[in-house]
């Protein structure tokens, strides 16, 4: 093995932090599987018009409730079967992945941005401002998230946009708390005091010096936030409070399909499976990231 002896003789530089984190992450097979599934989903969402065999709203009047291809009576042109008005389920699921990922991206971006801002303010200013922000977050945490989201949607009216806003508000306290805790831990460290002595302004301290060192828990929370957002949006859609039919949103599809549960198992099975796989993938990746980024758990 010439390569081994070569690497043994070569002086080894310490691996870059990114590479080290990647190695920890990749050693976790579940996390890697999650990443692959997410990659496939992103691909399907981005190239939906080319990947999907049919358009999401195209109705095949001659093929209502066709079972999946492997079942009796299945047709090769509808791999996962069709719904009650002859729409191809696979195509709708592929287009639905666009919505679910969009929900994830928007909710996480909104809540992360607002959460970081509030958390930084609470962590830097302390005192009355901090008390006000944190008490408000405690109130929000005291309510079950789905109930709060339902209340907000009841105010704003049912739609996918309002559902996203509601979920972003509901998950906000987690980001605020994490940011504040990390900021408070960082600001007592020497490098922050040193740069303050050197004359760094408040904004520079907040965003350039302190925030990058608080990112690890936030990245983990944001990844897990994707799964919460997708699950809650689907739940709201299922309750009729999120995306409205005929949008191919997975939760809405399930609500539509409920009445056919006795006759056509495939219309209820596949949308839910899509939700489960997506949420599971983000949870696996989030767990893997936590293990990789948390120095306490590193061996």
């Amino acid at each position, binding site marked *: 093995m010439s390569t081994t002896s070569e690497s043994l003789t070569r002086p080894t530089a310490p691996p870059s932090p990114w590479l080290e984190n990647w190695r920890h992450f990749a050693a976790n097979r*579940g996390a890697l599987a999650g990443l692959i599934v997410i990659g496939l989903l992103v691909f399907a969402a981005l190239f939906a018009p080319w990947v999907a065999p049919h358009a999401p709203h195209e109705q095949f009047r001659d093929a209502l409730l066709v079972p999946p291809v492997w079942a009796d009576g299945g047709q090769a042109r509808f791999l996962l079967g069709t719904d009650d008005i002859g729409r191809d389920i696979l195509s709708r699921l592929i287009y639905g992945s666009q919505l679910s990922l969009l929900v994830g991206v928007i909710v996480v971006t909104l809540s992360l941005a607002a959460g970081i801002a509030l958390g930084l303010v609470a962590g830097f200013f302390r005192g009355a401002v901090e008390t006000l922000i944190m*008490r*408000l977050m*405690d*109130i*929000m945490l*005291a*309510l*079950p*998230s*789905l*109930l*709060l989201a*339902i*209340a907000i949607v*009841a*105010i704003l*009216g049912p739609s996918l946009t309002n559902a996203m806003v509601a979920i972003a508000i509901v998950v906000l306290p987690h980001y605020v708390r994490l940011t504040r805790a990390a900021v408070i831990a960082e600001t007592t460290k020497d490098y922050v005091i040193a740069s303050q002595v050197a004359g760094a302004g408040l904004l520079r301290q907040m965003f350039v010096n302190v925030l990058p060192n608080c990112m690890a828990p936030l990245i983990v929370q944001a990844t897990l936030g994707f*799964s919460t957002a997708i*699950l809650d949006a*689907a*739940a709201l859609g*299922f*309750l*009729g*409070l999120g995306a409205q039919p005929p949008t191919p949103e997975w*939760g809405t599809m*399930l609500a539509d399909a*409920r009445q056919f*549960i*006795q006759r056509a*198992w495939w219309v*209820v*099975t596949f*949308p*839910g*499976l899509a*939700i*489960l796989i997506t*949420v*599971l993938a983000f*949870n*696996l990746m989030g*767990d893997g990231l936590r293990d990789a980024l948390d120095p306490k758990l590193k061996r």
Partner: protein
Amino acid sequence: MILFILRRVGLLIPTFIGVTLLAFALIRLIPGDPIELLAGERGIDPARHAALMAQFGFDRPLWQQYGHYIGQVLQGDLGTSLSTRQPVLDEFFTLFPATVELSLFAMAFAIVIGLPVGILAAVKRGSVFDHTVMGVSLTGYSMPIFWWALLLILLFSVQLGWTPVSGRIAVAYFVEPVTGLMLVDTLLAGDTDAFWSALHHLVLPAIVLGTIPLAVIARMTRSAMMEVIREDYIRVARAKGLSTMRVILVHALRNALIPVVTVIGLQTGVMLAGAILTETIFAWPGVGKWLIDSINRRDYPSVQGGILLVAAVVMLVNLLVDLTYGLINPRIRHSK
């Protein structure tokens, strides 16, 4: 301990005010004013509209309206349902026992399975059993429970015909409500057939509602157990020659239970929200289904009162959990 209770109760007040603000805002932020809402699609003539606005105080400044609202809430007046013309509070408490019954069974299901499975996974750390438990519980944790409910209905109700699809008891039975808990009432009435019918109706919804708490409890028990097993006092207990059973179930479990109890309590709150989905799917006549029906009927006084009451129940449960926590863990009670 009294100081601890007082401090904990004191923390509830700002939370309660926040919730009332939310409930108050709910009915004022929706498009159209409350009088138009009451009048419905028939419309109302402007003079009568103005008179009613004045009569209900909707023309006064917002802070006065809020003060009035708080006053009413504290007297137990949560308004009248638009669809049934019944006081919202009465409606809520008629339906609440159904939700309690469902939640109790779901939690029992979650604890009875989650606890032993978590302990065993911790003891057999790294084994196939451990990996299976972790995999299954992560799946359970990621489960969209409304879909899980449909799958179980598909299997047990549609395919096997073992359980009914919806409701609380077969229509053939009429049981005088005493406690509001169907299983207790049927037994009180001495009607065994009705009892079995109620039990059959309860099984699937309870499993569905208990799934996520089950996953969380199993994971939490496992990790708490693994922490404790590493402690020195466990090694001492082993070295003394105590049996493994005794070390695990008596010495280790006692300390491992503290975080688990907290999680169980927190899950109770989550469960009330989960009940909204479960009850809607199984047409379970509890407060969750009522809340969603009220939203769909645009019955805003019911939505407003319902959200306030569910939030109050969750806060109460969380308070009880905190107090229990202080009771079993002296370190919490005496801190600060």
